[in-house]
């Protein structure tokens, strides 16, 4: 095999891990990181290290299942746990992802308003483009656009450098954990880990690996793809926190939304950094608006045994197309309705995600340890210890986060 050929095979395998990881930094994630940087400066940077480790442990396991079984996670859950469990899981996932899609369109609307473009034009336009891309386009086009859009995340790295941060202070805060006994601090710590590991990602990653048909022989390359993806996710997060921490934190500027960060950056980091930040947010939001509904439609159809595929038509795959279309239409309309309960919906969505994650992770761990499914590729004892440990910590954190997101509602 020539060196070129080897490289080509390698390139053909990488992708799922990197795409999944990038899309993980969606509108919600970016908001969390921006707010964390603006509110607490560099002090939360250390959370990215445990986050990366947890992400790698979980994603590696999911990727391995995809390679060994050649099936998606929803396929395996359906075959092992039956239609009832799967059905309810899919309903929760549908509602949760609906909330996430709303958040993506809200992020898109906000970033467009940074440029002075009316959301009443840009949201329908964005929704229409997203819709036409998948219903009329082919898979190849969709994949290329996704990969291209992933590159745009580099915008955050540039804006990070443009803010001229204090690197020695950053290094110190990254490697030495610090805690403050402040509710907001704790919430943000948990939120950083919580927004990084979501139920839909697990389904998405395993399906895309299974779809790619990556064989055992190429598993190493695939694992590399996943690990690189995990690092990229957190490197982007790292630069978002840095940007906001360097420019907004010293001036005590409080923000609650990612687009406010873009606006607030202008006087301190300059026009370009501000624009880069807004463009990256727009990109992340629209990417999320493509992938979240698409992934939702995919695994619901897989689990239920319905036809699915970007290359199919409404006639061939009606369930798939209608789930996708409905998600996009309703979410984009909701963003446009003045006074629509968006915050409530997003809270509900993160709550449902929090509820679902333990099930997804526990199912995944049990499946990965099933000899009948995984053969000799089950988790080794030491890895099981780490995985179960990670899963328990994530579940505890997510539960706390979900609880905290909901409690303010009771107070009001």
């Amino acid at each position, binding site marked *: *095999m020539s060196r*070129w*050929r080897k490289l080509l*095979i390698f390139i*053909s395998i990488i992708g799922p891990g990197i795409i999944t990881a990038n899309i993980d930094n969606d509108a919600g994630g970016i908001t969390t990181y921006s707010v964390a940087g603006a509110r607490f400066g560099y002090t939360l940077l250390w959370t990215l290290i445990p986050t990366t480790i947890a992400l790698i442990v979980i994603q590696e396991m999911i990727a391995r299942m995809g390679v060994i*079984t*050649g*099936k998606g996670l929803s*396929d395996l859950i*359906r*075959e092992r746990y*039956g*239609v*009832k469990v*799967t*059905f309810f899981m899919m309903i929760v996932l549908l509602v949760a992802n609906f909330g996430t899609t709303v958040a993506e369109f809200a992020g898109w609307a906000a970033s467009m308003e940074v440029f002075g473009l009316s959301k009443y034009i840009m949201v329908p336009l964005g929704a229409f483009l997203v819709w036409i891309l998948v219903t009329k386009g*082919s*898979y*190849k*086009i*969709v*994949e290329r656009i996704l990969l291209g859009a992933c590159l745009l995340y580099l915008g955050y790295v540039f804006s990070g450098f443009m803010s001229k941060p204090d690197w020695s202070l950053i290094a110190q805060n990254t490697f030495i954990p610090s805690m403050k006994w402040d509710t907001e601090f704790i919430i943000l710590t948990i939120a950083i880990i919580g927004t990084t590991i979501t139920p839909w990602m697990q389904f*998405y990653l395993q*399906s*895309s690996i*299974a*779809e*790619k*048909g*990556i*064989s055992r*022989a190429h598993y190493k390359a695939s694992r590399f793809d996943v690990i690189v993806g995990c690092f990229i996710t957190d490197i982007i997060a790292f630069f978002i926190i840095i940007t906001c921490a360097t420019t907004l934190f010293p001036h005590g500027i409080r923000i609650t939304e990612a687009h406010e960060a873009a606006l607030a950056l202008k006087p301190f980091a300059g026009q370009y950094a501000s624009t880069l930040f807004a463009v990256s947010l727009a990109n992340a939001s629209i990417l999320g608006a493509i*992938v979240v509904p*698409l*992934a939702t439609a*995919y695994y619901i159809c897989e689990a*239920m*045994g*319905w*036809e*699915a*595929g*970007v*290359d199919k038509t409404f006639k061939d795959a009606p369930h798939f197309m209608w789930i996708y279309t409905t998600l996009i239409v309703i979410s984009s309309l909701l963003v446009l309705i003045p006074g629509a309960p968006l915050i409530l919906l997003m809270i509900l969505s993160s709550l449902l995600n929090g509820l679902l994650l333990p099930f997804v992770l526990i199912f995944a761990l049990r499946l990965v340890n099933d000899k*009948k*499914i995984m053969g000799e590729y089950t988790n080794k004892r030491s890895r099981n210890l780490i995985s179960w440990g990670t899963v328990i910590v994530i579940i505890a954190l997510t539960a706390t986060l979900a609880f905290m997101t909901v409690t303010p509602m009771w107070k009001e």
Partner: protein
Amino acid sequence: MPLFGELFVSEILKKPVLDPRGDDLGRVKDVLVIKGEPLPRISAIIIEKKKAQYLLKWDSLSIFNKRIISAKIYADKLEVYSPSADDLLIVRDIFDKQIVDANGAKVVRVNDVKLEGLNGDACLIAVDVGMRGILRRLGVERNGENLVQVFGKTLTYNLISWNYIQPLEPRLTTISLTIPRQMLSELHPSDIAEIISQVSHKEGVILFEGLDPDAAAEALHELRPDMQAAIIDKMDSEHASEIIERMPADEAADVISDLPTEKAQELLGMIEREEAESISELLGHEEDTAGGLMINEFIAYPPELTVSEAIERFRKDAGELEEAYYIYVADAKEKLLGAISLRDLILAPTDAKLSDIMQDKLQTVAPETDEKVVAGIISKYNLLALPVVDKDNVILGMVTVDDVVDLLLPPASRKKRRKV
């Protein structure tokens, strides 16, 4: 114990089973099936009480329908059941598994299984793959019916007869079901490829091994390149080499080049020598160049041959060739002099020499020419095949139109296997 009429397995699950006194023996957990003619039949039902499982033979039942199930025997006579991988259990092994539906060339899932009484037995007659089955499993079939009636529609039954279903592996434990092998072989290779791209690797390999080598070779060609290599890699070498042997040399070379080196060498060693040599020769060229695309089997005759001699020789030679659109005319050193289309050859006077009737203004390309350029030339000059020559004009092979047709089509209609 006869079953009158029909029922769905999900309708009896978790139903209590009563003994002759009317005491509770346990609840239905699963249904054990054995082979039968013409259809598989129930040999026993598995009941569960306080986490212990018992086997209740079909003969020991006295009433069996969706409202009531009762046995002739008492609790102390129940046989303890320990699950075995060899048994075929409807809930464990058939429910929720994939079915490859050959008619629509798509994958569906088993939502429920339908039983029917036949000569005193309960036979497995069909699997439910529709929405109704899902709703029934969730216990809301009636509600679902009412709901769609509001919209003026009815829920249709979507059943596949068991006759069309055959286990993919001898033991049904963790695998999917598929349509009968013969039916699969009758499908168009593109459809087979479509099905294979939708099941897991392991099942894909099994499906492939069930096909006859000719059909397999064609279906393999229709698969995505990375999938081709993955499947061949996992197949046993004998089977794989047989399939490779039946592929045109250029396609075989593409597949082999994607395999791990050892496997590739092993396969090449098992293939008929002549074929293996042409493949090895093609492996030397980059995939997306004329050299990588070309077939190195072609017909070339000396210029002094007469038309009738040429036709005579062509009859013998062409049988083994993949494509024969043109007869090339080459000198003793294999230098390309001209080409004659079959039509021109047949219409020419039988005593004419090939050199008299050949076209000598030929389009040719070098082996390292980019595939897009090759496609452009083939399209521009309306060729069926384009000869590939080295710098001394020695003919090496030809690129046929079907190898570049993908490059000529707009992206949407190219061969593509799904998705995200």
